């Protein structure tokens, strides 16, 4: 139940608030990918791919960008599978725990999250401007949005640090 509420909260935060931030043209943080990053470790890879695709399509519906988030989420989940396969999470997998700082350790969780967040922003901003890439705009948007997304994720992770895995 907590997981469902967590999902609803993050999706709501993204759709209602973060997608409509008018602070800067460069600031488009994609915080909802935290849901994919933190997916429970015991979920079958097939389902992980399907969940990523479904979540991406849902975001595409809200942003009117069919295919962009879905494609990026699929890549993200594949990279996540690759990154997690190099980490020793067997014990947590058996306990049906989610991937978090609490289960994987702060450092592995941080570098996995940073890689995935940076990749995701790089990829979607590239897809959005494909064919007429403005390098400076692309890089600025990617860096500003990634850092702000990581900050928000950090706050969320800190707040749910003790509760989410229960």
């Amino acid at each position: 139940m907590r997981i469902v509420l967590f999902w609803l909260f993050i999706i709501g935060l993204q759709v209602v608030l973060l997608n409509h931030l008018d602070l800067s043209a460069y600031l488009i943080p994609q915080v909802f990918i935290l849901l994919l990053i933190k997916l429970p470790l015991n979920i079958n890879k097939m389902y992980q791919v399907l969940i990523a695709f479904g979540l991406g399509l849902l975001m595409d519906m809200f942003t009117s960008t069919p295919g962009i988030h879905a494609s990026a989420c699929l890549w993200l989940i594949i990279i996540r599978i690759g990154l997690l396969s190099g980490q020793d999470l067997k014990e947590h997998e058996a306990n049906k725990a989610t991937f978090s700082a609490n289960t994987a350790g702060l450092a592995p969780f941080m570098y996995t999250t940073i890689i995935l967040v940076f990749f995701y922003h790089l990829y979607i901003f590239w897809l959005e401007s494909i064919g007429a890439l403005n390098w400076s705009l692309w890089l600025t948007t990617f860096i500003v949005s990634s850092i702000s997304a990581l900050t928000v994720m950090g706050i969320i992770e800190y707040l749910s640090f003790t509760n989410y895995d229960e």
Partner: protein
Amino acid sequence: MHRLLAFIEQNLYFILFAVLQVVCSFLLFGLNPYQQASFTHSAAVVTANSNKLSSDVTGYLDLKNQNIILQNQVANQFQNSSLGTIMYLHDTLKVKDSSRQHLYDLVPAQVVYNSVYKAENVFVINKGTIDGIKKNMGVVSSEGLAGIVLKSNAKYSTVMSLLNTNMKVIPNINGMEYFTELVWDNSSPQTMKIKGINKLEKIEVGDMVQTGQSSLLFPRGIPIGTITKLEQKENSQYFDTELVTTTNFRNLTYVYVVINRDAHLIAPLIEE
């Protein structure tokens, strides 16, 4: 087979990922107007490039045929030009009309063997007596004079290259015939020498050396080379002249055999 099935089963998620990425591509390039336009543009560029590549490859493979066509065109043009014909007047008094009598034929040929570093260089062409080639016919390249036919069999002919110490050509410089000989002294595959041109003659470095009218083998005005050195020795009244041949013998691939149609009629008159 069992292992293959196990492998597929183990990586089924990746196959699903690939399938869903294809679905995403359809959504992305089908429903987003900007990405669709970008994709259409990129596809057009790719198509244009692939068409160009295909055209280049086809063109390259067809180069041999195009060469043969071009050679034939050059030969035809030569035959219809003033170099290949002698012009005479029907009526010397009224000068009403002039007509051209066809004198030279050109037979395109390909060089199948070539030497440039011997004292007596020759090259072999893929045309012989079947094509009307006989001994003592002139051979030119598209750049200038190349040699004289030494002997022929049915399909091939040996040509004495201009780079042959036995080759003697009478030079024509600035429209003036010099009764001395242009010889190759076996020093470099592109330089020849003329001795015996008087210092009083008005020739300069850069002048073109051509064939003159004292030979039945070549039409007048076929380039032989360009004068690159004029040396005046104190004790001599002649220039030591050096020229660079217009024909690059190290890269000789296509030539034309010059057939003088009336040589058999003119030669006996000269000998008499």
